């Protein structure tokens, strides 16, 4: 293991920032969702890197659970987007003002 652990953490930080940039820049609900997925994966990468650094498997377990929760989240999120498109016939999040008080 010759690669310093900080390189993996820096890569994870860059990926997380790109995910949040995607969330901030895009107005298509699906593109925003992809940005959220990228953020989740960036955090998973840092969890596995810390697991390697501390010689413990608990970080990998946490990354595993995070993948399971992300799978459930994707299913519900995409169903919400499909229901939203049926009602408003647009994927633009600015057009979805249903919950506005």
């Amino acid at each position, binding site marked *: 293991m010759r*690669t310093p652990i900080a390189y993996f953490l820096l890569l994870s930080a860059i990926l997380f920032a790109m995910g949040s940039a995607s969330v901030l*820049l895009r107005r298509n609900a*699906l593109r925003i969702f992809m940005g959220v997925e990228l953020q989740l994966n960036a955090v*998973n990468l840092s969890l596995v890197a810390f697991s390697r650094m501390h010689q413990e498997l608990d970080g990998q377990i946490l990354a595993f*659970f995070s993948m399971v929760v992300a799978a459930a989240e*994707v299913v519900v999120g995409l169903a919400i*987007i*499909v229901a939203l498109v049926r009602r408003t016939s647009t994927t633009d999040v600015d057009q979805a003002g249903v919950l506005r008080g």
Partner: protein
Amino acid sequence: MPLDNVVFWVFAPLSVATGIGMIVVRSAVHAALFLVVNLFTIAVMYLLLDAPFLFAVQIVVYAGAIMVLFLFVIMLLGVDRGDARNERLFGQRTTAVILAAAIVAELAAAIRAGVGFATRAPEGFDAVNAGGNPSALADVLFRDYFFPFEVTSILLIVAAVAAMVLALRRSRALTQREIEEHAGDDLEALAVAPPGAPEQVREPTP
């Protein structure tokens, strides 16, 4: 140059490049395909970090199942729905890029203070991965994390039911009279109950 360094410096720039491609490209399908490549590079990083089980799970679950679901929904909703080109908030793009750069700078400072840029992981993860990584993971998972593991099974069932409820289109059978009255109209739209309407009793079609 040791092999894992070479692999890292091949796949890390690829990961960053596909991430930028995902943000910049206009078509949603192209963005999804860039994200697939990005998730593959993250899987390679797991392999470098001695986590072969997560490498396989990442490819099967993320690059396989989740991205296929994404592409399926994109195709279902129509491929040509591009993003709106105009900026509705003044300076949104500039602010977003500045904020993203600030996140990178802040995390880099935190990594430098907390871990240090030159710290290498200790050699010999094989002792932790005794009997193979999946076997060692299973030991920890089913001994220390058994209750959370069972809870995730409930979570998955609830998510599957929730997706069905959300995507269900409640429709009813039309009577012959309605069909005659609305001849030439969109009968399919008529059959879909209006949102919030009470459940219609299904009538046997004559």
